[in-house]
């Protein structure tokens, strides 16, 4: 065994990022690390790279224990090199300079340029890379820059290279070149930890895999004999079942309809998801689930509906009539749409600011005298109302939200949206990173909202969650909606097939 990680623990304020994670990488294998966003992959990678220290657990490289306090440089010198999605290259410097940055070969205390270029050339030749070591990195394509990162890893005599989404910005032809390099490295006994959400690549390239879900270790095994659907099951399935608590068919009027939303964002952002002709309807009093893998277009469509992002084409039908898609979140809110975003910390919370500030900010309009002066009595009453209704545990209204647990933070953000009395409530990953008890409470809140006549859209990477709360489920795959399933009759197999393979089966009975 080259690398063994045992029972790794890591917490952040309000989130348990890793809880007892294991990872075993053998010498000379390509090991896929799988999991949805928020499963804990990035945290584990940072711990392996020495960018963060684990709270508990052991890391062993070839049987020797690694010090959790190692710096990234010490890890690199030990032979563990990480290639991040955002490269760590200096664009104005040459290929060779980047490869030997900070460790340039010297003679009499001065840089020995000739030796540096020779050694760089030797490594590039060895890897079969046709790159000029004198060329400035800025003139290289993204794929070539990635090769420089790999060559740089080899200057450390890397035994384990960690690649985070290496194909995210590559064309198909470039992916083939990457495969060749990875196989070449493997043949020379170098191990690779390969992180990707393109599961086909796992089948094509990887030997073994480890799956994380919600900060926990789910499974490891050989890739041989597995299909994409098997991997999907491990990533989004769940052993613990939720009690199904739906709004039970109190479906009212059509509240929102988006038609033919299409977007080709790739010109400006190579990571953008292309959306094709997406049409969705939501009715008052129902929970509509958005199921699909990361990158399938669920979050993207939700943000377009809310006005947070733009799309190239599409119209929206909101109660009164058809109109152009909304252009900003404030238009979304004015039109009765509220969004609890995917990433609590980055997009939801003002971490250092009080719970009241976090909860009431968008509804202050209604709590202010002459629209200007905040009525603090009314504000306190509002916070108190939701504290009781959602059973939010808080030391006081003025406690910074960053000090609450993830579940309570999420309840504050839900209360923020509920206080706006929306007609459409969109909740993206309602229970990511929160404990199981709080999850059930959040589910209850969502279905209660639907019962009170709100149209609720729930996006989740956890199928059991989607199945527990949804009256209808829209399944997304690679920027298209591949099916619409009734929540009562949905089963994991059907949903997974639609998510992974996308047969347009006759499952639209619910519509």
């Amino acid at each position, binding site marked *: 065994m080259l690398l063994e990680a045992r029972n790794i623990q890591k917490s952040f304020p309000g989130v348990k990022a890793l809880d007892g994670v294991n990872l075993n990488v053998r010498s000379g294998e390509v090991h896929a690390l799988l999991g949805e966003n928020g499963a804990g992959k990035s945290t584990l990678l940072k711990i392996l790279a020495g960018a963060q220290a684990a709270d508990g657990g052991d890391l062993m490289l070839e049987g020797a224990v690694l010090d959790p306090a190692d710096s990234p440089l010490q890890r690199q010198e030990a032979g563990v090199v990480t290639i991040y999605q955002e490269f760590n290259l200096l664009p104005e410097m040459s290929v060779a300079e980047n490869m030997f940055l900070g460790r340039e070969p010297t003679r009499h205390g001065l840089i020995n340029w000739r030796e540096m270029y020779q050694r760089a050339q030797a490594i590039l030749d060895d890897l079969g890379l046709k790159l000029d070591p004198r060329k400035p990195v800025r003139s290289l394509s993204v794929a070539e820059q990635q090769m420089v990162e790999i060559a740089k890893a080899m200057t450390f005599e890397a035994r384990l290279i960690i690649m985070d989404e290496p194909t995210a910005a590559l064309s198909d032809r470039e992916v083939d070149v990457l495969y060749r390099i990875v196989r070449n490295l493997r043949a020379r006994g170098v191990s690779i930890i390969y992180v990707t959400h393109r599961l086909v690549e796992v089948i094509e390239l990887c030997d073994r895999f480890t799956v994380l879900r919600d900060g926990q270790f789910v499974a490891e095994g050989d890739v041989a004999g597995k299909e994409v659907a098997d991997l999907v099951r491990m990533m989004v399935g769940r052993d613990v079942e939720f009690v199904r608590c739906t709004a039970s068919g109190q479906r009212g009027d059509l509240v929102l309809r988006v038609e033919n939303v299409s977007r080709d964002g790739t010109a400006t952002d190579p990571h953008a998801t292309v959306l094709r002709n997406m049409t969705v309807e939501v009715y008052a009093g129902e929970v509509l689930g958005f199921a699909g893998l990361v990158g399938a277009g669920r979050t993207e469509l939700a943000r377009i509906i809310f006005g947070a992002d733009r799309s190239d084409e599409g119209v929206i039908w909101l109660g009164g009539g058809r109109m152009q898609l909304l252009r*900003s979140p404030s238009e979304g809110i004015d039109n009765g749409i509220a969004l609890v975003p995917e990433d609590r910390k980055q*997009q939801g*919370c003002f971490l250092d600011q009080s719970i009241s*500030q976090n909860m009431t*900010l968008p509804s202050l309009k209604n709590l*202010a005298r002459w629209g*200007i002066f905040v009525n*603090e009595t009314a504000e306190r009453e509002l916070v108190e109302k939701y504290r009781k209704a959602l059973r939010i545990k808080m030391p006081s209204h003025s406690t910074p939200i960053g000090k609450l647990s993830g579940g309570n933070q999420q309840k504050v953000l839900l209360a923020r949206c509920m206080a706006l009395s929306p007609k459409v409530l969109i909740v993206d990953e309602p229970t990511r990173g929160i404990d199981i008890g709080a999850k059930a409470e959040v589910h209850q809140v969502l279905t209660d909202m639907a019962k009170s006549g709100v149209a609720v859209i729930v996006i989740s990477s956890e199928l059991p969650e989607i199945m527990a709360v949804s009256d209808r489920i829209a399944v997304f795959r690679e920027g298209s909606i591949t099916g619409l399933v009734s929540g009562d009759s949905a089963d994991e197999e059907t949903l997974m097939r639609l998510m992974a393979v996308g047969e347009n089966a006759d499952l639209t009975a619910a519509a």
Partner: protein
Amino acid sequence: MDAAGEQRSAEAQLEPDRKGKSGWSAIEFFNRYGTGIFLVLVCAFFMAQNPNFLSLRNIANILTDVSIYGVIAVGMTFVIITAGVDLAVGATLAFASMFAAWLISKAGVSFGPPWLTALLASVAVGAIVGYIHGKATTFFNVPAFITTLGGMTIWRGASMLINDGGPISGFDEGLRWWGTGAILGVPVPVVVFVLVAAAGYIVQRYTRFGRQIYAIGGNVEAARLTGLNVKAVETSVYMIVGLLSGLAGFLLMARLNSAEAVAGLNYELRVIASVVIGGASLAGGVGGIGGTIIGALLIGVLSNGLVMMGVNAYYQQIVIGVIIVLAVAFDTYAKKHGR
């Protein structure tokens, strides 16, 4: 810088679990009142050195000096809370006051008394300049550091153009009263500063706008997703600081009986220092008018006290510089180990 800040705050929140209670309460106390205590100590020190330091006359002098840049510092507090900065406040002050002086002295425009014309012109020009800074920053999506760095030389150059670089001097009694007069024994600029600071405090503490600037500085993406019009709020903070720079320009020309193209040179540093010593973070989301007033007073007291002690002017700059760095270093330390 953002990521580092977030990391730091994340660590700060983990810390109390590991520390004993007695450990952080002292740090917390100093973090909150440290600058104020330091101000008192500095005053005591200067008084021991020279009893005249606390004479009414000298106190009035200090407060009048402080008031002129303090007025701007109130606006700068808002800017810095949104994670922005305005480097052009000194130049805005000069341009607004030169324009106002030109209007009443050279162009002979007047409605009502000259002081009213000058006051309105100065404030309006400042607000327009601030609006331009805000629009340039939000429309082109350029950091405010850059747009206001440009503004700093643009408006300085423009104020030179107005009278070929020369001052415009000699105003009537009514105008000079704004700089040298007193109400119930309190110098007029001090009264103006108190009113501006009180208004600033009310805005910060009791209005939606106040909440919005903290939200934008705390997490701009979350602010956008809660429906705030981020660009409009950002533009208005630059407009406010511009308007107050114009007001300060008016007070300064009234005090000196002269508008000068080189007025307010290096004011941006003094103003930003006041806000930062007062506990605001350039990363945004933190700070307040109360702290800013203490910061402005501290700088005023130091400059004045060192002069009275006969300390070389060059040393004064060094002392103030050291204090800025220490104040921020302590703040960072307290955030990491306190709370």
